[in-house]
């Protein structure tokens, strides 16, 4: 069994209750409806296998907020390292997305993107600094740029922006 299947298997334990979604790309369906459905993103939590040559990563995992810590633990267990954490502001859907990129040191190439959607007005996520110490700066950066609050983070003060910064520049409605 290669690492991609192992990862899929281990991560699927998160979705036992919900069932794995093999629907099409969320963004593609967004385009067709032109942002009409604003309440819920059309894609359900689950794992999608991506075409690596086309997309550049292998597994696209959508999880719920409360599954994040468990997902990070599984990834750490499987020997993945955290590449980056970033946000995306979906202002039309009134959602913020946090993307966690994982990759491997060994020759079993498998890139995993773990996504979480959170409401734009109260963006809260649990911190994963307990699992990946290196998430510290990435979370601070995401807090700087998007205002996502990482609950339990040891030192959530601006990192890249000035120390007294109270703005989140990468939000789409940000005006300097």
């Amino acid at each position, binding site marked *: 069994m290669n690492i991609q299947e192992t990862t899929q298997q281990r991560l699927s334990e998160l979705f036992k209750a919900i069932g794995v979604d093999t629907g099409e*790309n969320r*963004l*593609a369906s*967004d*385009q067709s409806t032109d942002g009409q459905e604003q309440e819920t993103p059309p894609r359900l939590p689950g794992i999608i296998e991506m075409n690596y*040559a*086309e*997309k*550049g*990563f292998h597994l*696209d995992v959508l999880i719920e907020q409360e599954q994040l810590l468990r997902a990070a633990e599984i990834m750490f267990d499987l*020997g993945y*390292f*955290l*590449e*980056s954490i*970033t946000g*995306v*502001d979906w202002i039309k859907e009134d959602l913020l997305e946090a*993307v966690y*990129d994982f*990759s*491997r*040191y*060994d*020759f079993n*190439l498998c*890139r995993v*993107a773990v996504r979480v959607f959170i409401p734009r007005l109260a963006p809260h996520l649990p911190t994963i*600094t307990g699992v*990946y*110490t*290196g998430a*510290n*700066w990435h979370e601070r950066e995401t807090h700087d*740029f998007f205002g996502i609050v990482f609950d339990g983070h*040891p*030192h959530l003060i*601006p*990192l*890249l*922006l*000035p120390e007294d910064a109270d703005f989140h*520049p*990468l939000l789409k409605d940000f005006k300097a």
Partner: protein
Amino acid sequence: MSEPIELQQDETFVLNLGPQHPATHGVLRVKLTMDGEYIYNAETVLGYIHRMHEKMAENRTYPQYMPNMGRLDYLSALSFNHGYALVVERAAAIEVPERAEYIRVITVELNRISSHLVWLGAFVLDLGGFTPLMYCFDDREQILDLLESVTGSRLTYCYFRFGGLYNDIDETFIAGTKSFIKRMRKELKMYAKLVTGNVILMKRLKGHGRVDRDMCLRYGATGPVARGSGINYDVRRNEPYSVYPELDFEVPVYDDGDSFARYLVRMDEMEQSLRIIEQALEKLPDGPVNPEKKPKLIKPPPGDYYAAVETARGNFGIRLVSDGTKNAYRLKLRSPTYSNMHLFDEACRGMLLADALAFMGSLDLVIPEMDR
């Protein structure tokens, strides 16, 4: 991990290292809590050269954003060019001619050597040796001459285009590169005598600044920092892109995890880069350097795209979120030194201040790339 500083002893004091400090190679600031000469706690403060690269990606079209890549990491600008070109080519499904791929590899590897040369000069300067800096910059100027003749600039290259290159290389460049390889082989032997065998250097580096495998994993360190800690990870090998699979080269790995191991990794990498250039020059095919069919306006279909390259400092990843327009919806730049520097806070605890500076130098920092 940077926790709020709680003074445990009466003897500690806070020392500000930077933002203007010659050993931080830019405007990095480290808030050190010192117990005498020993570091009790360290907290890195970034952002003194935050230049809004990610926001600019949302305001500019894809080709307009290419010059930013040269300014992101000015020492290995071409690797960053390559990363960005890869992700956009992947997203917009643009084919790259083979000759262009080979030229990309040649120029990127030349750039990698020049980056390592600046690092070597500045690193030894940090340790108190002035002479190697002069030799390194002299060698680097040879590379800059070569690259200037094809790219048009000395430092902040904007040479790659989506699907190809700005222009083709000529015979003068090839001849110049070949003679440079000969020269550099000799110079590397000279560096080995002048620097590597130096007793003072060994005493400053060996056994200091240990970073183990577990720490690399927790922080996501890549590049020479990871390879100095026994992790055989090089994007060129692990996730082959461009024509690297067709070229024969080794990935130097050292197990010690100290500053000296990282030093050796970079010295060996220069040699390997010379090998890569040599082979690529031999295999260089004829043909165009730009694709015949290329979209006038680049509008990738909506979706997420990812690409990673190995820069001189490690794994540089780009996540591109496209919404189908001519600007990126979101562009995340995953820069290697950001993660590499992060482990400094933990690893430097209990070190002498002077050793910590040697350790910092061995991480090879480029601050604008960290702050983005």
